[in-house]
């Protein structure tokens, strides 16, 4: 039944809140209703909106007037604006009063808690309880005295029970309100989501029974324009109306039906529910096309109905694919150096946990993997002039990178050939023309050759020339300086740099081509962030595109919300921090469509088509400098490529569009040092470096709100992997039957193919030097 009502008065209560008084067109009486009821208003293009009836006079039994109060939401999707546009004398259609928020009828005391405009149903409750002579408290929070609607009227009527709270004077003390409530009390709360969640959590923490906690959410409508109410029938036959501005989950929760849900965005899959009848209107990003088309399941936190009614199998848990029976076997046995045992740790769709937690495997990684691969050492701008050096490590091997008198970069083991003393331990410095060991003053040229030994005659008759010590500081197997980035291979023999990286170097090319001068310079020291987890967890995470919107909701999601609330003027440039953080909250589709490319030997990158860096602002000064250096075509091509993270196996990641390099330095099976470097584009304006520096501290610092949640996940995983549950780590997302990692492939951006590619390379470079010499060597 619809009602046709005439607006007979519209009174301003406070700024943005008006009180609307409606009567029947012909002055007839109106349907009865009880405290807590609402009307659904038909607002044309703005859709249907629900507003609670306010009843100061407790005239619900024979009403000639219906009153609602509406707060104008200038950023809402039009419902409240449509209400405010009504003028006295206008008529409007509504439903009959409906009540999803009934007051209890017991003798028990009542605690009423209202926040902001959520006070409207609470006023009706107070009037009812007051008339009953019942015991109750009425707590009402607003931002300030100026924002407190109906303050005078409420004080006049309910003074004994009423406490007004103002956020800017003294915030509502929910903790005490709930802790000090008389036993057996019922709680009724209406207000913003945060308040309701706080009430629910505090009440549950106090052991208050769920059926004593009642609430109604005043969420801003999230639905689409034109959403209509519909009905949901649950397994026990009860039927509920889902208003246009509420979700199934919200209504079921309010009714005390135990629905399981989490994200309330339609992406986590937890609230998936079987549909027994009716046609769902899918709004989620979880279901596959065939699941959608089947109409047999839906995500009840966002999806709605195309039919008037849905019949849902609520109470029955969503059917989950049975976890593949764990193929438990002791893969390592006694023979830890057997290449076959290494191979047995990696299947295409899963990886044995020993690769992440086992100390012996870690030692084998240091010995084989980090010896056979090309590993990043440093940038040549860190050693600009002859004698400049830095100290670092390749795997667990201490090395010195130094610029020699021939202007070439050398990478030497940081070990005096005499007694083993490290020659240099400061992170960077200039040694002049030679290194001098501080223990016995053996000296070495900056290419490592032995220069002099004090009192050398003591070795004269000792065949010293044949000793290894006479060779000086040993060079690593091979070194390559690629456009300023220095890589080294420890092994004397092995794959060439070109064969090892191949087309993967295109990401470095893009980063360097962004400099008008064609070269980069390191900008300051790196951030150093210690992680109590295996180094491969960090590498895996670089192409894990299904975690940002989950793990980083607390930072990126909050940033987006704060920015929306800030009323930022449209003509003012967005804060740089928002440009950086907000894209982390991009939906799954964004990451699916961005694409992942994998290259042979474990390299790969996210962001083939676009990335979280695509929409950064550029300025004409920079564009002109690039065009002058490279011509318009190449400049456009360079800036058009916005790769997200490129992993160079084994242990670095670069971000071309923000000129960063992160080095995941293994220190133990469960310890990794992450060094995050930034670079200046030589010849480019400073604001690009400003953004790069900001990105580094916002995302990669030990003080970073984003980094905190990543590290939390790695460390939880490092501990969780020890559980005597399955021994396998799943890397199966979008796995196809036959994947050939020697082929370059471009796939859906949420595939875990790059993780599989990495572990394929892991086996390759682990076993490369194990056989056939293994038995002889061990």
């Amino acid at each position: 039944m619809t009602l046709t009502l005439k607006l007979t008065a519209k009174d301003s209560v406070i700024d943005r809140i008006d009180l609307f008084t409606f009567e029947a067109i012909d002055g007839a009486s109106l349907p009865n209703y009880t405290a807590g009821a609402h009307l659904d208003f038909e607002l044309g293009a703005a859709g249907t909106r629900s507003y609670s009836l306010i009843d100061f006079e407790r005239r619900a039994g024979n009403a000639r007037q219906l009153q609602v109060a509406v707060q104008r939401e200038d950023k809402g999707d039009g419902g409240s604006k449509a209400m405010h546009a009504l003028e006295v004398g206008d008529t409007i259609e509504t439903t009959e009063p409906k009540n999803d928020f009934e007051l209890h009828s017991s003798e028990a005391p009542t605690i009423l808690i209202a926040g902001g405009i959520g006070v409207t149903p609470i006023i009706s409750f107070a009037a009812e309880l007051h008339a009953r002579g019942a015991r109750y408290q009425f707590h009402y929070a607003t931002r300030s005295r100026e924002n407190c609607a109906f303050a005078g009227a409420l004080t006049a009527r309910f003074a004994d029970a009423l406490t007004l709270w103002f956020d800017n004077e003294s915030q509502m003390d929910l903790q005490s309100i709930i802790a000090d409530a008389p036993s057996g009390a019922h709680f009724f709360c209406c207000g913003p989501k945060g308040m309701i969640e706080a009430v629910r959590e505090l009440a549950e923490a106090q052991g208050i029974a769920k059926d004593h906690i009642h609430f109604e959410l005043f969420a801003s409508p999230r639905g689409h324009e034109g959403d209509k109410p519909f009905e949901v029938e649950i397994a026990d036959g009860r039927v509920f109306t889902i208003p246009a501005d509420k979700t199934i989950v919200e209504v079921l929760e309010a009714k005390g039906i135990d629905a399981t849900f989490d994200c309330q965005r339609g992406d986590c899959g937890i609230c998936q529910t079987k549909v027994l009848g009716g046609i769902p209107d899918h709004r989620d990003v979880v279901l596959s096309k065939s699941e959608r088309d089947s109409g047999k399941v839906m995500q009840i936190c966002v999806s709605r109905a195309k039919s008037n009614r849905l019949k849902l199998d609520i109470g029955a848990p969503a059917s989950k694919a049975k976890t593949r029976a764990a193929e438990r076997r002791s893969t390592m046995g006694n023979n830890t150096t057997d290449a076959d045992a290494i191979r047995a740790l990696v299947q295409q769709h899963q990886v044995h946990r020993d690769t992440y937690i086992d100390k012996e495997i870690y030692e084998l990684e240091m010995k084989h993997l980090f010896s056979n691969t090309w590993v990043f050492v440093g940038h040549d701008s860190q050693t600009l002039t002859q004698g400049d050096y830095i100290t670092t490590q390749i795997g667990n091997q201490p090395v010195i990178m130094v610029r020699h008198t021939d202007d070439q970069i050398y990478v030497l083991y940081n070990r005096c050939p005499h007694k083993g003393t490290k020659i240099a331990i400061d992170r960077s410095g200039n040694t002049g023309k030679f290194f001098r060991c501080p223990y016995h003053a053996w000296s070495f040229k900056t290419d490592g050759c032995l220069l002099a030994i004090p009192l050398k005659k003591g070795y004269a008759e000792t065949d010293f020339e044949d000793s290894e010590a006479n060779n000086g500081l040993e060079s690593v197997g091979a070194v390559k300086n690629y456009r300023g980035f220095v890589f080294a291979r420890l092994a004397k023999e092995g794959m060439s740099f070109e064969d090892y990286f191949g087309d993967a170097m295109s990401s470095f090319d893009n980063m360097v081509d962004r400099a008008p001068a064609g070269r980069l310079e390191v900008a300051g020291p790196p951030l150093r962030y210690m992680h109590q987890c295996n180094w491969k967890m960090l590498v895996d995470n670089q192409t894990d595109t299904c975690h940002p919107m989950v793990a980083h909701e607390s930072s990126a999601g909050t940033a987006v919300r704060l920015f929306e609330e800030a009323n930022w003027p449209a003509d003012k440039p967005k804060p740089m921090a928002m440009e950086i953080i907000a894209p982390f909250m991009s939906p799954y589709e964004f990451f699916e469509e961005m694409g992942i490319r994998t290259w042979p030997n474990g390299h790969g990158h996210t962001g083939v088509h676009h990335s979280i860096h695509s929409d950064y602002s550029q300025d004409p000064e920079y564009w002109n400098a690039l065009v002058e250096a490279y011509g318009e075509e190449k400049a456009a091509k360079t800036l058009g490529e916005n790769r997200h993270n490129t992993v160079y196996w084994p242990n670095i990641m670069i971000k071309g569009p923000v000129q960063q390099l992160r080095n995941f330095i293994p220190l133990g099976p469960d310890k990794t040092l992450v060094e995050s470097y930034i670079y200046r584009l030589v010849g480019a304006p400073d604001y690009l470096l400003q953004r790069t520096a900001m990105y580094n501290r916002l995302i990669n610092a030990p003080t970073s709100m984003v980094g905190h949640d990543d590290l939390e996940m790695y460390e939880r995983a490092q501990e969780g992997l020890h559980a005597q549950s399955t021994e396998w780590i799943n890397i199966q997302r979008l796995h196809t039957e036959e994947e050939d990692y020697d082929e370059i492939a471009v796939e859906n951006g949420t595939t875990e193919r790059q993780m599989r590619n990495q572990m394929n390379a892991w086996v390759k470079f682990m076993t490369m030097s194990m056989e056939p010499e293994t038995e002889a060597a061990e």
Partner: protein
Amino acid sequence: MTLTRDNIIDFIYDEARMLDEGRFSEWLDLWIPEGHYWMPLDYKQKDPDLVTSLLYEDDFMRRLRVERLNGERTFSQKPKSRCHHVIQRPFVDEFDLDTGHFVTNTSMHYIETRLDEQFLLAITATHELKLVDGKLRIANKRVELLNSDAAFGNIQLLP
């Protein structure tokens, strides 16, 4: 009432207590909006802008940080961290009643804990304070860690 050096010193103590008691939203109100909260990465770092810092946060970032700490889906804060400042009596290096401009220099030991882990940072904090409508406000705060170049795990609260 005329402001004294003791008022300045009390302000620094009150701020530390506020942080230790987790009253972060109140702490936000101590700031003038244009102020920056800076934690350099390099010893005696001069430039907050074109090299990396640990923190260099304006009003928006401070609010984001506090909102996140207060939020319900902040996984690295389940359970929450707690912090503790032990501060030495601040030096009042500048005290200008005419312009309402004050600078203090304070040595602190900052301790942060979560679950079974606890760590200590030795800090020198420089506060630039301004008198706004009769109230002291933080115009800028620089927090220098004695070992700013060391590798840290998570530093989650506000030293």
